[in-house]
């Protein structure tokens, strides 16, 4: 039993990494949201497992928070946004997918190299997964750089936040509760603001177009 839990933690960490790769190779926005939801679920499971293995009850709370925010609330908001804006496809990536995957592999190697000295110093049960957390962060970062559309950028931002949360769990069994709550609040408010922005940008650029057409008519 005691040997099983650490292995399960490693398993879910690996799932997180796989999902990060799936996200950088995915062009469809709808699939991206599904992948993000799965990543949230994997993160919550891994957090709860670390909590179970180390008898840290506040990690259950943290896992619950992740489920509420990143499996239900934020994906629901994102679905609403893309429904209203009617943007289901995203074919534009600045670098083509195979190259992105190769860069992703390099990032993973770099992340493990960077995490090695830290994880040796950590006493955490999940210390081996710190490299994965860092790799998820870096890959989401790259996703934000290589996508030119707003929605994938937001998903990249959120998935970076997932990587960060996993890093906190892997390295230190999670941050103090008050900090974690504050972070969750910031992320939620940030997503709401960005959602509103997307509508406003859309509205503004449409209305600009209309004015442009009117001016042409007057001439």
């Amino acid at each position, binding site marked *: 039993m005691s040997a099983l839990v650490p292995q399960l933690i490693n398993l879910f960490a690996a799932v997180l990494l796989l999902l990060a790769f799936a996200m950088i190779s995915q062009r469809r926005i709808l699939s991206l949201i599904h992948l993000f939801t799965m990543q949230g679920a994997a993160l919550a499971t891994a957090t709860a497992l670390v909590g179970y293995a180390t008898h840290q009850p506040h990690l259950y709370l943290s896992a619950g928070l992740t489920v509420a925010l990143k499996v239900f609330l934020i994906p629901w908001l994102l679905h609403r946004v893309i429904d209203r804006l009617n943007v289901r496809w995203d074919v534009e990536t600045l670098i083509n997918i195979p190259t992105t995957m190769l860069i992703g592999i390099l990032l993973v190697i770099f992340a493990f190299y*960077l995490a090695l*000295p*830290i994880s040796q*110093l*950590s*006493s955490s049960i999940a210390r081996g997964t710190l490299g994965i957390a*860092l790799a998820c*962060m870096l890959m989401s*970062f790259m996703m*934000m750089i290589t996508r030119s559309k*707003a929605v994938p*950028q937001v998903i990249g*931002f959120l998935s*970076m*936040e997932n990587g*960060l949360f996993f*890093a*906190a769990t892997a*390295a*230190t*069994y999670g*941050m*103090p509760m*008050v*900090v974690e709550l*504050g*972070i969750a*609040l*910031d992320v939620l*408010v*940030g997503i709401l*603001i*960005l959602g509103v*922005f997307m509508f*406003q*940008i859309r509205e*503004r*650029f449409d209305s*600009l177009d209309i004015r442009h057409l009117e001016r042409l008519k007057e001439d």
Partner: protein
Amino acid sequence: MDTLFFVFGIPLAGSVILAFTGHRDFARNINVAFSLGTFIAACILTAEVISLGPIFAGNRAFFIDPLNVFLVTLTAFVGLTTAIFSRPYMQIERDHGKMTPPRLRLYHSMYQLFSFTMLLALTTNNMGILWVAMEAATLTTVLLVSVYRSAASLEAASKYFILCGVGIAQALFGTVLLYMAAEKVVGPEGGALLWTNLAAVKGQLDPTIITLAFAFLFIGYGTKVGLVPLHNWLPDAHAEGPTPVSAVLSGLLLNVALYAILRCKVLTDGALASALTGHLMMGFGLLSVVVAAFFISRQKDVKRMFAYSSIEHMGLITFAFGMGGPIATFAGLLHMTVHSLIKSAIFFAVGHAAQKAGTQIMEDIRGLIKVNPMVGWGLILGSLAILGMPPFGVFASEFLILTTAMREQPWATPLLLLALGVAFASMLNRILPMVFGETTVKPLAHPPAVIPVFVHLGLGLMLGLYIPPYLDAWYRQAARMIGG
């Protein structure tokens, strides 16, 4: 102490009340009243810290020492004068149809909430809450920058959000690493993120983890300071938002972000034997000064130009703190104060100037001195002050920084002098024709707020001529804390 809770309780209450009443005519006055309340509470708090020494509050969750109390007072003061400036400014904007009632409500409420997040970031003892407050400050200012809802302001705000969001995520990772290093020494129950606990054991923190943590924290908060090459959001956010927001961004937000770096620097210096933090800060600081100075010469928009000037000055301050030592650190703190005062005064004058001319493009603003001459005088005096002309305070602090640099980092001095010279020539070249000569501007519908401009300039002048003994002692104490 109870005073502390008033310091950030007042703006928090203000933001709630203004969220309901912010569109009314009297909301401007409520905004000023709450800012005044915050300032008075900050003054009382300062008096307490001066007489009693460092204060803990809320079960050690908050901590006031000479370093942050001086920034608390400065933040509350600039918050107050900017609120006074924004009274006529927003009246004129409303008459022009740029501010509608819902936008005014959002603006006033977010203005107070922004003050709250700044003060929370300054007074908290918890490095995690510091991060949360900095991120919350980003969110409130993103809303403030986008308040005009124009295409340009939306673009600027979303760019600001994404860049600072990514930057500050790095700082969160740094905080996680810091927590990890501290947990080994303090233990998980001991409040391992409390700065005072960390400072007490900083010599025992693991150097490998701390080095990495500082790198991430520096990149993260450095994005918010606007250090080159992480500065891209700053000119856009300054130029496209309302001018009171530009004033508080330059005058307060950049300072608070730098304060966060200083707190991390103290811990890192204690844990490491090398001068890593100093080298990083000097390098990025110098790069910012030089790059920003050359960008100043290429600007057409007056607010963008002064935004680049903010990058230049934040770079100079970072460089001064990077050099370390009592004189450079003292100069850095002094420069933080005068830059904050003078730059917000300039933005007040620029805001009214742009309203008079109906544009922010410098070539189209001419002869400000003709109509409402005080705005023109404010702009020219402020520009001379920020460029380091004696007898203003910027001259004193820049002189101290340069002379220390000559002694300790002689290689950097020519670069600094070159950058300051380029900034001087190009900025004065733009500002003089704006102020003098044939006029293109119209009078303002409401009397401009010139009192805040001249109060700030007067204080900047005073700090150049004479630093009161208690202020001097205070700077010295703070400089000792940072490691001077």
